């Protein structure tokens, strides 16, 4: 009896647990048996009643038992399918909410990066350059052999270093080339700035913006790991797209032993999971590291 109650309450239990995200009434409607379900139940009940009536004169107990069993069985079938429909509807809603949240998050991530870039590139870097010009002017006004001049010259050199630091900060931000020229150009530009040898094999085509962004983050994260840890001779970045999915692989022949539970790699796995993809890494010690990711829906 308790099992029967649990099953019956199944669609309503789903509504309770998804309270914050799901429209309860919609869910209950989704869980309600359909018109077809009701028709089948009515027909079966009629057939059962007729059979029972026919049996009743000879075998009253048996006919009652048969009728009861069949009606119970039908009731269970209706409730189970209703529960299944409700669970599917709930899962669909959860997935839709997830996708909406992720899209918003990726957009916010890009906007934040662009805001930081704007601040550093267009404001801070410019301020630093202006300081440089002021120092140049000041140096013109003092005797080149004076202590003041020496101080100014040192400060001027610090200004050049400051611009370099700002540039290093910007190098990790959202690359301008990704929007206007696509994944291949962005990855090739990144690779051209790195001091390691990387072969790039990416098709010259566009993908949906979120896919390009997350793919770029995965690739640049992987390459940053290669740079920091791998001591590799050769690294290859390969991207292929077929059957509605993008496959990314970053393979290096370095020392391997990468920790797949490490925070950096978990970040990359999240980038794949956000788009319902997967990322795995195979890193035998002394052989090298292979990072593979798939991002669906291209």
């Amino acid at each position, binding site marked *: 009896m308790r099992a029967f109650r649990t099953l019956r309450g199944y669609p309503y239990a789903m509504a309770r647990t998804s309270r914050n995200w799901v429209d309860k009434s919609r869910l209950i409607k989704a869980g309600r048996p359909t018109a077809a379900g009701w028709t089948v139940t009515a027909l079966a009940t009629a057939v059962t009643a007729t059979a029972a009536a026919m049996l009743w004169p000879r075998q009253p107990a048996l006919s009652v038992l048969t009728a009861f069993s069949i009606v119970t069985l039908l009731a269970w079938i209706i409730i189970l399918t209703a529960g299944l429909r409700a669970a599917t509807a709930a899962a669909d809603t959860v997935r839709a909410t997830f996708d909406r949240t992720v899209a918003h998050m990726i957009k916010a991530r890009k906007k934040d990066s662009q805001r930081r870039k704007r601040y550093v590139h267009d404001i801070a870097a410019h301020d630093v350059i202006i300081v440089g010009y002021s120092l140049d002017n000041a140096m013109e006004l003092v005797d080149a052999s004076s202590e003041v001049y020496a101080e100014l010259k040192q400060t001027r050199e610090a200004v050049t270093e400051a611009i370099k630091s700002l540039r290093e900060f910007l190098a990790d931000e959202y690359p301008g080339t990704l929007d206007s*020229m696509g994944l291949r150009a962005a990855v090739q530009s990144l690779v051209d700035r790195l001091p390691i040898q990387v072969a790039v094999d990416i098709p010259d085509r566009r993908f949906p913006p979120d896919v390009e962004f997350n793919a770029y983050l995965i690739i640049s994260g992987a390459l940053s790991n290669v740079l920091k840890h791998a001591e590799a001779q050769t690294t290859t970045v390969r991207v292929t797209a077929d059957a509605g999915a993008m496959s990314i692989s970053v393979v290096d022949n370095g020392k391997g032993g990468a920790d797949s539970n490490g925070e950096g790699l978990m970040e990359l796995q999240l980038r794949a999971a956000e788009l319902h993809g997967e990322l795995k890494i195979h890193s035998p010690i002394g052989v090298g590291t292979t990072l593979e990711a798939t991002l669906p829906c291209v």
Partner: protein
Amino acid sequence: MRVAILEDSVLLRSGLAAALRAADVDVVLETGSSDELLAGFENARPDVVLLDIRLPPDYSDEGIVIAERLRAQDPKVGLLVLSVVAESAYAMRLLDGGSSGVGYLLKDSLLDIPSLVSALTRVMAGECVIEPTLIDGLIKKRRSIQSAHGLTEREAEVLRLLAEGFSNAGIAERTGLSRKTVEVHLVNIFGKLRIPTDADINRRVTAAMTWLRSTDS
């Protein structure tokens, strides 16, 4: 030399203009608006336009688009595009439209006025100027897989200057070699890189860059 400046930040723009004027450069137009530049371009008749790659409204790569439009309006005007981060894809895109009179440098060059003026002069003369640190990074990597084909030290030096856009005369001046020697080195380099020897100065920059960026040996 007549120079136009397209730079969004007011203070930087005026500081740069003042510094250039102090170096005897005639700044004929300075503005932060691409529309104003395109409109005033014909009257101002600059020899070179100096522009940031990031401009309003989106601050992504408007500079390259403006450069392409300016070149369409006047194919002879020199264009020097500045960027805080060296994106080789932008350099290649600029070169794609023809590498004569085109330059791509880091914004750091704004801090070194004499070297900026020299870059502007080269661009005005129809040469090509590519950011040395970008070339440097590529050459260092390339040489490490080049040992089998053996570019000599001297040849690597000549290749570096070639990829930075210098003419034969410019290479000779910077290496202290005679022009004849430079030409001999170039023939050897073109053979090793498989660049056709009759490639004009500017196509060879593109060819050198393409070779440097690839990892085939």
